[in-house]
């Protein structure tokens, strides 16, 4: 009886489920059908026409601004911004500035938290909603999707026509800046530019330890090994244990062997190839995958040797960049590789707090056995600004971009000499510029650049801040407003003796080896085979490499890995990557 009843119940339930899912399917089908109809027929798009009547032609460009104001819609992936009272994302000092100075009305279609951003854009795409005029996209796969879906505009012409000489000069420095947006001769957006060499590694060494063992900073691997041997023997932290002198951290799902802090890419670079990076290792017209180059095998053998000798910790596979750098800041290790900003944090913030007497010096990356020096480079093009296919006011957006570049590195006497807006990012106190927290209204300075459409992007020449800091380090007096701003971040002591500023020194060091940066030259969306097989290949790679370093597998397993990598999709990926490379290179 009971069984029969149960069966009946299940049957009923299943029927209901089925009926419901069909219902659901039908209803969304209807919606989607409509939306599709709209999307395929831009001419019939009601929304467009309304906008046109509201904003007549942009011909009204008078006295450097648009009259009447032109509206640019966009979105913002940060709902955590601070505002002065009465201000909001739609109406704040920056939007008012854009409207009054440039005649551009910035309108945010939606605002969401950073982690929800990609989902929100994908939903908008999936629902075939009208996209905002301007979108800042960080995800190259999504960029690829947008290009493929034909939703965004080729900006080649608009950029040539409306970009200022300054902007053109900055973007013309390197053709690879445009690679991420180039496809079949078109440019589907304007890449934003990261600070150059911001993630390139320098070696940080405990100078006080070096002095005690009486050795200079190592210039090649051989000297480095001697230093490490001496550091183990000296046991500087006095815990009676053989601490690993070189701090590494290889827990990173994407690329454990070329990362920011606790970087190990320079060991591979010393042999001539960076794992995980696409570059022209053997032929300047062909991109090849770094991890399968024979140089990587030599580097793995070297790391295995160091592991056996105790130069690197048994825990490196468990430690991510932050945990890994704790080896250095807790005084177990005396050597760590990391970016130029690392001296401030975590070295100064943690190590100097533990031990105020610790002395750390940024040093050059040591050379490999054949004299080669290499480190992973920083990719300059970052997030991409893209534009809705039918966006009509590229002239207005380019004006906005030109002006941001101009005023971000102001000339002396410019109204923006001291910063963007008084009372926001700087205040005048007793006739002098102040950035001290206490002098601001409510003691809260506001970073106006967070209100820009391209939030958090520097919008200056990518080499500018490096060049300024190198000048300052070499004792040149600051002249331009930007130089003065950098100069004023230093302590009084450092102003008198610029060689004492370790961050400036790190900049000087990283620039001395600027020709050794090796870039990941693949800037396209993940290819089809990458999407389907990339993860399996990556798993295989990380498993093999870590096992070799941990001496759980012989170095010759590398050869098996290369064969397997090529056979299980690697060759296809290489072909796809080169197809992209040719298409991006030949504009």
């Amino acid at each position, binding site marked *: 009886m009971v069984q029969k009843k*149960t069966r009946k119940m299940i049957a009923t339930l299943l029927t209901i489920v089925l009926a*419901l899912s069909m219902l659901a399917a039908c209803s969304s089908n209807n919606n989607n059908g409509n939306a599709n109809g709209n999307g395929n027929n831009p001419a019939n798009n009601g929304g467009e026409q309304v906008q046109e009547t509201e904003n007549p032609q942009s011909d009204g460009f008078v006295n450097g601004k648009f009259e009447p104001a032109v509206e640019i819609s966009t979105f913002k992936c940060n709902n955590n911004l601070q505002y002065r009272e009465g201000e909001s994302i739609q109406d704040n000092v920056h939007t008012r500035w854009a409207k009054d100075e440039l005649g551009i009305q910035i309108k945010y279609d939606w605002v969401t938290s950073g982690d929800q951003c990609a989902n929100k854009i994908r939903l908008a795409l999936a629902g075939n909603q009208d996209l905002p005029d301007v979108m800042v996209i960080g995800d190259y796969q999504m960029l690829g*999707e*947008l290009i493929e879906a034909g939703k965004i505009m080729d900006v080649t012409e608009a950029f040539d026509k409306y970009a200022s000489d300054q902007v053109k000069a900055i973007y013309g420095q390197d053709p690879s800046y445009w690679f991420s947006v180039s496809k079949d001769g078109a440019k589907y957006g304007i890449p934003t530019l990261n600070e150059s060499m911001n993630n390139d590694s320098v070696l940080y060494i405990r100078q006080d330890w070096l002095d005690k063992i009486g050795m200079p900073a190592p210039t090649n691997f051989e000297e480095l090994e001697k230093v490490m041997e001496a550091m183990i023997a000296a046991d500087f932290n006095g815990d009676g244990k053989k601490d690993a002198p070189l701090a590494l951290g290889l827990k990173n799902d994407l690329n454990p062997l070329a990362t920011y802090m606790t970087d190990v890419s320079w060991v591979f670079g010393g042999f001539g190839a960076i794992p995980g990076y696409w570059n022209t290792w053997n032929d300047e017209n062909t991109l090849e995958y770094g991890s399968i180059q024979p140089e990587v095998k030599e580097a793995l053998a070297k790391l295995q040797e160091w592991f056996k000798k105790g130069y690197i910790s048994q825990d490196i*596979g468990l430690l991510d960049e932050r945990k890994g750098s704790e080896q250095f800041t807790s005084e177990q290790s005396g050597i760590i590789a990391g970016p130029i900003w690392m001296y401030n944090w975590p070295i100064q913030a943690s190590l100097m707090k533990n031990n105020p007497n610790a002395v750390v010096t940024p040093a050059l990356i040591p050379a490999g056995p054949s004299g080669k020096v290499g480190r992973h480079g920083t990719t300059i093009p970052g997030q991409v600004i893209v534009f809705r296919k039918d966006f009509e006011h590229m002239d207005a957006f380019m004006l906005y971009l030109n002006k941001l570049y101009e005023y971000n590195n102001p000339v002396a006497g410019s109204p923006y000499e001291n910063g963007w807006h008084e009372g926001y990012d700087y205040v005048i106190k007793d006739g002098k510029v102040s950035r001290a927290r206490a002098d601001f209204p409510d003691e809260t300075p506001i970073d106006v650049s967070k209100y820009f459409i391209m939030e958090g992007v520097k919008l200056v020449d990518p080499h500018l801040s490096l060049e300024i800091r190198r000048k300052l380090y070499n004792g040149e007096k600051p002249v331009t407003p930007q130089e003065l701003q950098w100069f004023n971040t230093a302590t009084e002591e450092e102003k008198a003796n610029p060689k004492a500023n370790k961050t400036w020194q790190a900049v000087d060091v990283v620039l001395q080896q600027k020709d050794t940066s090796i870039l990941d030259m693949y800037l396209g969306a993940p290819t089809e085979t990458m999407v389907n097989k990339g993860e*399996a290949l990556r798993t295989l790679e990380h498993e093999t490499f870590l096992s070799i370093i941990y001496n759980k597998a012989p170095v010759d397993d590398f050869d098996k890995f290369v064969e397997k990598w090529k056979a299980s999709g690697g060759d296809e990926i290489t072909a796809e990557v080169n197809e992209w490379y040719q298409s991006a290179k030949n504009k």
Partner: protein
Amino acid sequence: MNKGHSVLYFMLIPGIVLVLIFNYLPMGGLVLAFQNYKPWLGIFGSDWVGMEHFRALFSREDSLQVIWNTFVIAGMKIIVGLVVPVLFAILLNEIRQMGLKRAVQTLVYLPHFMSWVILGGILLDLLSSRGLFNDVILPMFGIGPIPFLTDGDWFRFVVIASDTWKEFGFSTIVFLASLAGINPALYEAAEVDGATRFKQTLHITLPSMVPIIVVVGTLSLGSILNAGFDQIFNLYNALVYDKGDIIDTYVYRVGILSSQFSFASAVGLFKSVIGFILIVIAYRLAYKFANYRIF
């Protein structure tokens, strides 16, 4: 149907509607598993690919290993996670001093409320080559360092042991409750017949607990393919992929990191189907052996 019940049925409606909207409607999204879903084309614009994603799941060399890992880890977690709380509940039940009993009970279920992100960090510090175990405790017994987190077999052990440690206190509560429900007359009768405490446990306590053990075991069978994403994700590394990579971490890397929504849905559907089948089987077994029934 009694007319007087109609009001009660009416009051059921909001609950049913909620379940339909939030539990049944989203199942429509499972069609993703049979498509090559592209977000800008939407569900109705994407190509149908039939069973391709399932074929991909089973043809990938590493995915079979991943499924096997999941079975092993989740299976061990279920077994150990059942045995330990039962034994612990019986032992705790023997404590006569109520204050102590309550204190212990509270202490052991506290870890249940900690997140794996925090516990993962703590375990890393305890079990690394410089951690408390390898540096202090093991040398006291003359044992050399153990690669807890970098060797696959040890990794499984750590995962199962730490999960049991975290959860057994919480499961104990259920069993303690069932112990409280045993008729004291049974024990009195046994004592009269001269049964020792051990005999009483064996012949009265355990048999009385069987139904609840079966129920808990049955319910947990549904999660045979859930080996605990948060835990493993926070503890694993490339060195233990061969023994420690589970379906969920694999899907995270494949599906989420590289936006293969369809593949991720296919794996999700696969997991649900297996879970469903197991629940049905276990329910039958529970019905047969423990006379447990829901319907």
